[in-house]
């Protein structure tokens, strides 16, 4: 298992798409910070050139963007699936292959997330005004809260990529499973109490609402993320165990 993870790590650090993802994400954040900075410098009455606005509003959608960007290289796993036959032929079980790749993918995600959070903080503190004392602490708390639902998103995507063959199928299934229920439940929540409960407890809800004043306990996104992660991880593993190459 350790050897499998070692080799996956070797491949991961040499997968350029992850770096392109990080670069794109950095450029988006930097672009936003620089625009705020320029307006702050040129418009005396401009009220938004501060850290808090940058963290709470500008970066509000970034976790969603990051999940989508990060899953892009995983899409390519579909094209690499034939390589699995070499791994299975050497005696590694499907379970080990699946688990090792997932762990390395999640570890890579955490590393990238940490590095990019660092970049966002550098941009915020370096270019913008410190208007609120707790802006950084609130930002960190929000990110920590959204972490499990981001992991759920990546695990869901990974599970689909492990068992589906065509990229279009994977993307369609991902949108249907991860994002669509959020909008369907939103439409139903006015009519059904259970829909209202599910709407406010699905991972995408937490992903979209992390910067609003959280009206939910801190453990809720963790519980929701854990349920999604374990469920799709289990389903993916069950199906991957039957995969033939």
């Amino acid at each position: 298992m350790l050897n499998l993870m070692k080799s996956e790590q070797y491949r991961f650090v040499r997968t350029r798409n992850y770096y392109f993802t990080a670069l794109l994400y950095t450029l988006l954040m930097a672009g936003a910070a620089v625009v705020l900075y320029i307006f702050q410098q040129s418009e005396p009455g401009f009220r938004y050139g501060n850290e808090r606005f940058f963290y709470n509003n500008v970066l509000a959608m970034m976790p969603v963007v990051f999940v989508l960007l990060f899953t892009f290289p995983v899409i390519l796993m579909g094209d690499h699936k034939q390589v699995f036959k070499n791994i299975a032929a050497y005696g590694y079980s499907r379970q080990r292959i699946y688990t090792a790749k997932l762990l390395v993918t999640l570890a890579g995600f955490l590393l990238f997330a940490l590095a990019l959070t660092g970049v966002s903080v550098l941009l915020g503190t370096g270019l913008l005004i410190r208007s609120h004392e707790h802006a950084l602490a609130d930002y960190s708390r929000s990110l920590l809260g959204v972490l499990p639902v981001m992991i759920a998103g990546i695990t869901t995507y990974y599970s689909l990529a492990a068992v589906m063959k065509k990229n279009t199928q994977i993307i369609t299934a991902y949108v249907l499973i991860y994002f669509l229920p959020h909008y369907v439940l939103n439409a139903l929540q006015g009519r059904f109490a259970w829909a209202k409960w599910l709407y406010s407890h699905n991972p995408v809800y937490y992903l979209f609402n992390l910067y609003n004043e959280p009206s939910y306990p801190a453990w809720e996104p963790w519980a929701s993320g854990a349920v999604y992660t374990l469920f799709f991880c289990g389903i993916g593993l069950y199906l991957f165990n039957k995969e033939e190459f």
Partner: protein
Amino acid sequence: MMHCILEIEALGKTYKNVHALQDIQLSIAAGDIAAVIGKNGAGKTTLFKCVTEQVFPTSGTIRLYGKSDAAGIRRQRSKIGAMIEEPAFFPDFTARQNLEYFRQQRGIAGKEAVDRALKDVNLLDTGSKKFKDFSLGMKQRLGLALALMSHPALLILDEPTNGLDPEGKAEIRELLKTLNVEKKVTILISSHVLSELQSVATRYIFMDRGRIVEQLTAEELLNKTRKAVELVVDDSGRAATVLEQHFPDIPYRILPGNRIRLSGGTDRTEALNRTLYSCGVGVRSIAVTGEDLEEYYLGLLGGERHA
């Protein structure tokens, strides 16, 4: 007596309603070079895939180095080097990066193992060229390098010389012979080029429609195929009359150039010579000839020119 390293009993594999393998009984002894021969769709690749767990058998048992339980057999698979169907690697990696990935995965000590494997298949100088830019022959060589890198005791090769030029094919043949003789590597191989198999194989396994129809050692095949007598006479018409009178049980064909080919009678060449001579037919030469593997295969399975 050599011990069996691979034993297969009643193996079956069904894809939806198609029986890709049915009731396969097979045992491979250490040191064998076993050639699996059959038409496209005969089940050769599926058999190899079952042994390497790329697909799951529907029924039957596989015993590898004496182990048949799932965990035990998986541990024994680390002794296998396999190249089945088209070699699969990461397209954006070079040959060295691809092998390094698998070296780490297989826990093979020393980075020089990668260079050694590349050298064995003449791929050392591919530099920064990516796998996706390789020719089919180079891809095959890299697949073979991977199969060899872990010093396998059993090599499973599915059409390993596909896409190679004649020189490359000869190199691979020599490499396989050397591995078998010097390193005692057992080899299970299939190829569309039967003449290649005939020059390396010690055993033949003929498959048709998912079943094994015949298994022969190289010696048995030789005996079976050494079955024609070719005569060159001074008068083929007269010789034919003598043959019909004295050897009515041996079918024959008159060939151009006063040649006659007898399908049988390999153990009666002296009698043939004596009888023809005594009946006034001049015999210029008499020789026992045989079929090659391809002719034997065509006779057995009624196959196309290529298996």
